């Protein structure tokens, strides 16, 4: 048995890096310090066992070479290919993916587009006053979760970084902190709150604007109830915000997924800016996958833009809502798709999945999932953070290197993509002759 310390969890945007793992016979046998969700990931699940190609409706096992060649042929022939996913793998693989997209004139998009893509759009409107998670741990005396339920989605978040954690000016943990939760439902997180604002579904935008008006001192114009929340509760919230020495808003998909989308986030950020005229206030998206922040980073420094990048003309054109994966699919725009480290079969609207059944689909993933059901080429891969190492970015954009814990026979994402790129170039060279 080998004990490995300082293991980095490759599940959610918290990227906890203090996990202890026991490995026996090249298998993870025990996990300490991870949350229930992270532990489940590190302990492992059933795998896609072999590369496969669909023939007459059934997947037939084949070699890596054959699957890679087939994938390359599909991509090289496509007039409007989509390369999507990228958030549950390492930056090294993402880089190759972007190069492949450039080579074949593809649209490259990542899971941010159905997660915190709206947050990115909002940042492009107004910016983002934020900080690293350690800042929150050491300084925050007011924590607000808005449309986020870390108790279910980021189970270590409060303990490591926010409400329950202990830091330099917060050595007594939650004792001297306040927690405000804004949500439609009284979630497990909401039950811990000092103040729970139960908001009417879809009314977030109005509530943010009301808070801003109050933070700037225009109590007279705000109606008695906004978005289902009584004005007196809004006033109390504003008082807490002003009196805090360091406030932080964490927001989740309760805000990005609902009516208003990115404009809800613009308004959340504007609220933070309004609060900042009184005291220190920051805001941070609760990023989902462990490296969704990373693909946004890599895609930005390589193409200039974080997601939904159209390289069909050889340069990058960026317009979420036009080039994002869901739009391309529902509008039936793409004629081939590669999915890596993501599962649109489970996470895209049914309407857009329908098109996937009609075009060639390549799946690169360690695990079988709904996407496998209609993939034409399936390429199994090593699990980043367990079987392969590489760089990832935490939700606060801090880069951390995933460790390799066990050996594997599966090819890593980076290598598979490099091989596909090589094949594509060979095909193109041949065509050029």
């Amino acid at each position, binding site marked *: 048995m080998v004990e490995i310390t300082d293991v980095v969890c490759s599940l959610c945007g918290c990227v906890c890096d203090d996990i202890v793992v026991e490995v026996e016979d090249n298998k993870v046998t025990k996990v300490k310090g991870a949350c229930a969700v992270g532990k489940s990931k590190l302990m492992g699940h059933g795998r896609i066992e072999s590369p496969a190609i669909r023939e007459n409706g059934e997947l037939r096992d084949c070699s890596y070479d054959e699957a890679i060649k087939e994938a390359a042929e599909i991509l090289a022939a*496509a*007039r409007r290919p989509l390369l999507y996913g990228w958030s549950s793998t390492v930056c090294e693989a993402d880089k190759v993916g972007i190069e492949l997209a450039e080579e074949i004139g593809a649209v490259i998009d990542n899971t941010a587009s159905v997660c915190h893509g709206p947050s990115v759009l909002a940042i492009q409107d107004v910016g983002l006053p934020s900080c690293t998670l350690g800042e929150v741990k050491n300084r925050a005396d007011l924590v607000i979760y808005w449309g986020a339920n870390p108790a279910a989605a980021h189970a270590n978040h409060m303990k490591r970084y926010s409400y329950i954690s202990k830091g330099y000016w917060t050595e007594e943990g939650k004792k001297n902190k306040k927690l405000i939760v804004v949500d439609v439902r009284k979630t497990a997180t909401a039950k811990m709150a000092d103040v729970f604002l139960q908001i009417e579904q879809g009314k977030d935008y*109005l509530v943010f604007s009301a808070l801003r008006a109050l933070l700037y001192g225009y109590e007279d114009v705000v109606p008695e109830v906004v978005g289902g929340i009584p004005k007196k509760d809004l006033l109390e919230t504003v008082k807490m915000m002003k009196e805090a020495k360091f406030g932080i808003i964490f927001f989740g998909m309760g805000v990005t997924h609902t009516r208003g989308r990115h404009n809800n986030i613009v308004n959340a950020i504007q609220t933070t800016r309004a609060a900042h005229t009184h005291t220190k206030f920051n805001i941070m998206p609760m990023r989902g996958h462990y490296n969704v922040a990373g693909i946004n980073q890599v895609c930005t420094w390589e193409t200039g833009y974080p997601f939904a990048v159209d390289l*069909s003309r050889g340069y990058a054109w960026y317009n979420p809502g036009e080039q994002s994966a869901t739009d391309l699919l529902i509008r039936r*725009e793409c*004629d081939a798709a590669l999915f890596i480290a993501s599962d649109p079969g489970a996470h895209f609207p049914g309407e857009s999945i329908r098109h996937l059944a009609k075009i060639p689909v390549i799946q690169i993933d360690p695990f079988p999932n709904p996407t496998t059901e209609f993939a034409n080429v399936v390429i199994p891969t090593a699990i980043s953070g367990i079987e392969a190492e590489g760089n990832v970015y935490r939700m606060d954009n801090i880069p951390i290197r995933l460790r390799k814990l066990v050996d594997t026979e599966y090819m890593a994402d980076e290598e598979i993509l490099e091989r596909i790129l090589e094949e594509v170039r060979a095909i193109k060279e041949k065509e050029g002759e």
Partner: protein
Amino acid sequence: MQTIRLKLKEEITSGNAKIPIDVDSLTPDKLFGKNEAEIKAVKVWWGNREENTGDLFDVSVEGEAGSVEEVKIVMEGDLSRVKHIGDGMKAGEIEAIGDVDMHCGAMMTGGKITVRGNADCWAGREMRGGELIIEGDAGDNLCAMYRGEMTGMTGGKVTVGGNAGECAGQYMAGGEILIKGNTSILTGLNMKGGKITIEGDAVMPGADMTGGEITVKGKVLDMMPSFRFVGTTTIEGEEYKKYIGDLAMTEKRAKGVLYVR
């Protein structure tokens, strides 16, 4: 007068995938002075490959034009995947028969576009001048800015016969928009100049506006909680409530005017 007819060939959009064609190279000012053969040879992007216009469209030219103003392009066929119609156009006329795809009339500075159908998102994006008429519905982000910019439409006139989607006129700084139907959420978001008239209903209009004028002749649903009521006004014989806002931008900057019946 000269009429250039461009009819999209049926097979282009009849496959499993409907791959859009970008036609920003097919504006009256860019085609002026070209004969039929030359027009057929103009390159357009279809997915990740450039094609000849003549390979995608049936092209015919009637009459002569002495100036760009005398050039009229008529587009026909299934235009629902034809993007950037009249994008950047400076003068002349385009008539699109049927529903058109995104960015119709984006960045146009002059001339006239008539869409005899619906227009998808970003019609009139960053429009600087000229006239855009959409007889049907407009999609989202009508006359808005490009991502990250702080200025949308600055001039010209846009008329929508039906409804408009979300964020119509975002960051609008000048010009006029008339919407005869209803609008979805956040019309005139961040507006700083110009005029929007909505004959139907609107949801949360005027949020974060710092200038310009919005008139809603129908109902306002989810009125912003950060506007100040300042009295009533009569417009075209009807009484309207006048609000200024958005105070969420601070009083100093809240110079937008919202009229609600």
